[in-house]
């Protein structure tokens, strides 16, 4: 085969691999009249045996879908109420980053439902079946070692936070805001209650576990620790690196928007 043809074939393979199927969080960075329930990157039984089909189905079509519906309704109400308000016509990311600027009568509803919509999109986006508890790869892996000393030290800390969170919420691994064009910002572990998100604190989440009871009750009942173990086995470090790269592109866009 002609070398240029080989190159073209390789390039097209690369672009297919890198763009792949749309991640569940794609679109949160753009304004839309109405947002769809994100498609899962796998079938409902695609996370078996770690997360059972019934849980994935009700989590997606029950909980995530309800946040989607309620978010769209609240956004519509807000937009109709004030045709001049530009924040109501921004992306979901922008809205989450500027909660304090939402009119008070819509703020709680949007905080909860935009949060719920985005948090679940990120949760689905970090997982895939048959990962077999692989150790992390890529830039995120290297940065985990730098900040936490080792992957096992990071995993222990993250797990402890997930196990001890009171009530409903999430545990996150995020990058702090980018200040340099070249250096990657450091990673931090944080937690959030209910549908709050570190995006509202100016962070860029690259990994998240949902520890609301609905994420695990059908299979594990009160045994949250077992859910955490199952979740580690599903973390897709390639997807985590892709999400990390996606934020880097967003940072460029955010600077362009300002």
């Amino acid at each position, binding site marked *: 085969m002609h070398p240029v043809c080989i190159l073209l074939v390789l390039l097209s393979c690369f672009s297919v691999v890198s763009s792949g199927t749309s991640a569940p969080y794609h679109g949160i960075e753009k304004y839309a009249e109405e947002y769809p329930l994100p498609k899962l990157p796998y079938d409902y039984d695609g996370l078996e045996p770690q997360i059972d089909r019934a849980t994935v189905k009700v989590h997606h079509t029950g909980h995530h879908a309800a946040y989607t519906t309620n978010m769209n309704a609240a956004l519509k109400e807000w937009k109709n109420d004030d045709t001049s308000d530009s924040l109501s016509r921004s992306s979901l990311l922008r809205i989450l980053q500027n909660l304090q600027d939402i009119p008070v009568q819509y703020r709680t509803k949007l905080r909860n439902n935009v949060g719920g919509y985005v948090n679940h999109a990120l949760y689905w986006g970090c997982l895939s079946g048959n990962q077999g508890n692989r150790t992390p790869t890529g830039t995120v892996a290297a940065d985990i070692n730098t900040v936490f000393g080792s992957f096992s030290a990071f995993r222990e800390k993250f797990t402890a936070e997930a196990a001890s969170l009171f*009530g409903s919420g999430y545990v996150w691994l995020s990058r702090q805001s980018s200040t340099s064009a070249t250096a990657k910002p450091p990673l931090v572990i944080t937690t959030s209650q209910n549908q709050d998100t570190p995006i509202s604190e100016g962070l860029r989440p690259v990994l998240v576990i949902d520890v609301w009871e609905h994420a695990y009750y059908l299979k594990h009942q009160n045994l949250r620790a077992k859910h955490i173990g199952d979740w580690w086995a599903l973390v897709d470090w390639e997807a985590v690196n892709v999400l990390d790269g996606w934020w880097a592109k967003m940072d460029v866009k955010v600077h362009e928007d300002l």
Partner: protein
Amino acid sequence: MLASRLFTVARAFPKHAALGCLVPRLKHTLPDLCYDFNALEPVISAEIMKLHYTKHHATYVNNLNITEDKMADALKNGDINTTISLQPALKFNGGGHLNHTIFWTNLSPSGGGEPTGDLMTAIRDDFGSFENFKKELSATTIAIQGSGWGWLGFNPVNGMLKVTTCANQDPLEPTTGLVPLLGIDVWEHAYYLQYKNVRPDYVKEIWNIINWENVTERFAKARMEKLQ
């Protein structure tokens, strides 16, 4: 009844009042349930009742005891940092124990219907009608974000009834000053195995097992304490 007896621990030591006293602190225990795990069916399944009581409530009790032991040590040692850092665990587990203890008494297999007497009069006075009160408590409880409880409380300052909510296991009286009369647990563990994400169905059904005798007793006691 039988099942709950297994969880009662014999109280061997008297309660001590002074710090640094050599007599061990009284441990908290699971209260007896006045009905079998399956007694609240079909509203609340036996499976949920068993998990809720033997796992969730029991864990709050165990962790409350552990936290109080740590706190007693910290207080004895004058370790203010530790004392303060234990407070979230105390609120969470203490609140969990208080709330669930009230909850089991608020429910009964022969419950449902409407209250009568002074409690009904007070509900009509403060909400307009029983229907209004039921609608308000239901809607407010369903709307709780995340984990929490819906409450009918008694305000000891003005003698009025009030509907309110608390997040997580925050206990009603220390948090709001209201005396708890009736609580509805809407942590997902209270209903998920049966109702999944459809919390409104669970809140609708639970009215069929409300023990109005118990709520009335609590109301009468709260009113009497206000008069003193």
